């Protein structure tokens, strides 16, 4: 295998890394007032990455570096969506961070590093690359949460995130080493092959699987490994919460899919049984706890737990329907959560965080347009048609019913019903209550446009969900199931 064949699948990541280093240096030379150029450079980098990812895309599955790295349709689609997500995140958070003095080169560079980590996770085909990508992502996120040094609550969140994240990484590594002991390889394809042949040391395998699943559950933030989620979401500056709560879920999906589906497919009966417990517990605890929250960021934290639980139902179902629906669900969730956190940042202003439920009171009277967009996003999160959130739930439910677990579908919709309450409560606050504050809402033109696109996107994707669904299904089919 020649060098070029190895380099083409990773071209986007190499470009990204070079640009990050370049931006790091350029940023040093720029005055504090002209960080906007760094920002534009970052956006250009994202554009460049997407062009390279599209340009180097070829049908089929390509391995690089002796099977450590894989380039397939699923990874390309997820990468493109990650670029989009990061780009949207930056637009939403620019004004918010500027007002808080956090719009620094470090923030932008760390955002790109986290993206690099996600890209590596998405394309990893080997436990080592998976772990590398995960740590690059996690370390960038820990640092970003801690960027607001003078805020005790942010520092506390960063500390919690770091300690629990490190614990999860440890669990994951321990599980990986056990699987290595049981199968003799760290490469997913080889592990899968070895498992099909049969493994002598069953207890080792079982422990390895449990540790790996616990690590995954930690990273996804599903019950009972969810404890860090509310605190970190709440404590981190909203821009960082947005980053943590949106784009990395795509990488987490890829990560889960690569390990469970590509690597451990032959253990499907074992892990899907465990996932059922995790999924139901997440939907139950997430939905019930979210009702009790008065802080919007905490509420969304519990809602994330719920959504991840629902997404796992897709993995439980298996097959192109199951994994495809899980991917679709994750993508839709990213779009919705970007919009929701974006809305919190738009209502915030210098020295004021609009992160409690009461801050949304009477929004319809202060800004009917923003209220309407938020209503679309909340309806989508609740899974009410004609928004795209409905189709996300629909496709997962369809996958479950197809596998014969109709009871599980009934359980899932009953928890969705409970979930609908707290999303509706936000609509209630916006439309039925009188505003508590009459400070005019200043919306920058770029964020205003983006929230419009985001809200309208939720509706338009809801009216025409077919294309995105098919893209997800096809990429899962070409990438996970044809091996």
């Amino acid at each position, binding site marked *: 295998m020649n060098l070029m064949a190895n380099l083409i699948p990773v071209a986007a990541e190499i470009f990204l890394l070079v640009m990050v280093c370049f931006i790091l240096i350029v940023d040093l030379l720029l005055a504090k007032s002209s960080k906007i150029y760094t920002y534009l450079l970052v956006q250009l980098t994202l554009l460049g990455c997407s062009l390279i990812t599209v340009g180097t895309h070829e049908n089929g599955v390509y391995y690089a570096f002796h099977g450590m790295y894989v380039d397939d349709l699923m990874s390309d689609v997820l990468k493109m969506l990650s670029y989009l997500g990061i780009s949207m995140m930056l637009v939403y958070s620019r004004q918010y961070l500027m007002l808080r003095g956090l719009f620094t080169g470090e923030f932008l560079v760390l955002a790109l590093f986290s993206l690099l980590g996600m890209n590596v996770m998405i394309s990893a085909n080997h436990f080592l690359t998976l772990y590398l990508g995960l740590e690059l992502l996690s370390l960038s996120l820990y640092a970003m949460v801690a960027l607001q040094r003078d805020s005790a609550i942010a520092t506390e969140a960063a500390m919690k995130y770091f300690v629990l994240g490190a614990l999860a990484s440890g669990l994951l590594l321990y599980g990986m080493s056990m699987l290595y002991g049981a199968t003799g390889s760290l490469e997913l394809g080889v592990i899968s092959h070895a498992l099909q042949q049969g493994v002598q040391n069953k207890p080792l395998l079982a422990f390895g699987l449990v540790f790996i699943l616990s690590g995954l559950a930690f990273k996804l933030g599903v019950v009972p490994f969810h404890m860090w989620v509310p605190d970190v979401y709440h404590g981190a500056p909203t821009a960082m919460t947005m980053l943590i709560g949106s784009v990395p879920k795509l990488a987490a999906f890829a990560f889960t899919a690569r390990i469970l589906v590509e690597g451990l497919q032959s253990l499907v009966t074992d892990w899907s049984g465990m996932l059922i417990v995790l999924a139901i517990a997440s939907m139950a605890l997430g939905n019930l706890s979210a009702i009790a929250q008065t802080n919007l960021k905490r509420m969304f934290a519990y809602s994330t737990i719920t959504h991840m639980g629902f997404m796992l139902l897709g993995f439980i179902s298996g097959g192109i329907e199951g994994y495809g629906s899980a991917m679709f669900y994750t993508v839709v969730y990213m779009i919705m959560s970007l919009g929701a956190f974006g809305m919190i940042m738009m209502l915030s202003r210098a020295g004021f965080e609009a992160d409690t439920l009461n801050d949304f009171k009477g929004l319809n009277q202060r800004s009917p347009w923003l209220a309407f967009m938020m209503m679309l996003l909340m309806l989508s999160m609740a899974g*009410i*048609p004609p928004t795209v959130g409905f189709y996300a739930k629909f496709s997962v439910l369809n996958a479950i*019913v197809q596998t014969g677990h109709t009871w599980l579908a*009934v359980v899932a919709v009953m928890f969705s019903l409970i979930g609908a*309450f707290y999303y509706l409560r936000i609509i209630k606050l916006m439309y*039925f209550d009188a505003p508590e504050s009459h400070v005019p809402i200043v919306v920058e033109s770029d964020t205003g446009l983006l929230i419009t696109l985001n809200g309208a996107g939720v509706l338009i994707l809801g009216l025409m969900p077919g294309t995105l*669904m098919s893209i997800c299904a096809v990429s899962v089919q070409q990438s996970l199931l044809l091996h």
Partner: protein
Amino acid sequence: MIFGLPVISVAIWLPILFGILVLATGDDKNAPLARLLALVGSVLGFLVTLPLYTSFDTTTSNMQFVELHDWINRFNIHYYLGVDGISMLFILLNSFFTVIVVLAGWKVIEKRVAQYMAAFLVMSGVVNGVFAALDSILFYVFWEAMLIPMFIIIGVWGGPNRIYATMKFFLYTLLGSLLMLVALIYLYNLSGGSFAILDFHRVAIPMTAQILIFIAFFFAFAVKVPMFPVHTWLPDAHVEAPTGGSVVLAAIMLKVGAYGFLRFSMPITPDASHKMAGFMIALSLIAIVYIGLVALMQSDMKKLVAYSSISHMGFVTLGLFIFNAYGLEGALLQMLSHGFVAGALFLCIGVLYDRMHSRKIADYGGVANKMPVFAAFFMLFAMANSGLPGTSAFVGEFMVLMGAIKVNFWYAFAAGSTLVFGAAYTLWMYKRVIFGAVTNHHVAELTDINAREILIMSILAIFVLGMGVYPLPFAEILHTSVNDLLVHVAQSKLPL
């Protein structure tokens, strides 16, 4: 296709489009423009549905005006619309009532006019979609989307306890809908990958599955009807809703539940329907008798009419589940008639409420002295609500009773009691509100209804009387479809 335009699509999307236009007029500075646009939109929306009636072929039970386009290919979901004798009249009724509601809210609604009018227009289009959808997911999308404008209408323009009422309304109905969704997905897998309702009608289903599907549908539709014991959201929602909201709830929203039984439960799970018929009839009779007695005790006019609606809808579900042509046709006529009568009664209460800001019966008395024209109209609608021969309500109730007596004398006996209770609670309310001496100075200051209100009342009065005296134009549209449905329901769908 009429003039090259797909009639049903236009009937769905034209009001929605006008709704968006009205919304775009912005805040209350442009309220006159918003009202005017809403009126134009609703009148046009009604006019475009007329070809459904004029070009309707009464000799066939097949779907007419069918539109079939690909929508979500991955799940074989289509944009599939069409009407038969069962659904067509409801589209007309709905579009007609949108005009009435826009007119009724003309002066009364003063805050956020554009949003109010837009919500009703959007809802009108969406409800037309519910009646015309032939793909179950399309149906489900319209079905759920219908909740959103109603949720906003009750919550923003409703009475003091509106937030409790609207939350209850939304969550109650969502509970049923979600179970229905699981049932639809189950049927999709059973039917070999089709979401078309007409395909569901043909697929064979084992008994246990039929019962479970029937129960899932029951939750979705019974909540909407509403049937005893899941009716408790309705009095709350009605009392707190603005007049327009109450009218739409009574005239349209309650009908989609019964329509669901006709389109989904009965033809898809005929064996379960027969098996559960006793249960359904029992619930219907409880609604008729018990809720009728509850209505008698109400001191709030809106609550009284709300309970009377539940009682009358009990007649509808009774008519459906006795499985004969009299019952079914009677039930459908009763649905139409109840739309006109209950809608008109809520408008009458709205007229009083706008002037007095009270719905308490005790606050009134001797209104006839001050509002003679209004009293005459109110009298007509009150009589219709008690099922007086010559009004529309009589036709439906009479037919359902005829159907019931064929099945079991005691069913008819219990159901017949409504003629007594209905007359009792309606006329007693009427007497206390309208007759007697003027009781207080508020009543003394009342002014009679104006030209706009007379126009609305007259149109409704014409329908109530017209349908009562000469129901044939309505009945003949139903006839073929009802007979076809009965034949279908009589056949077992258990797998051989």
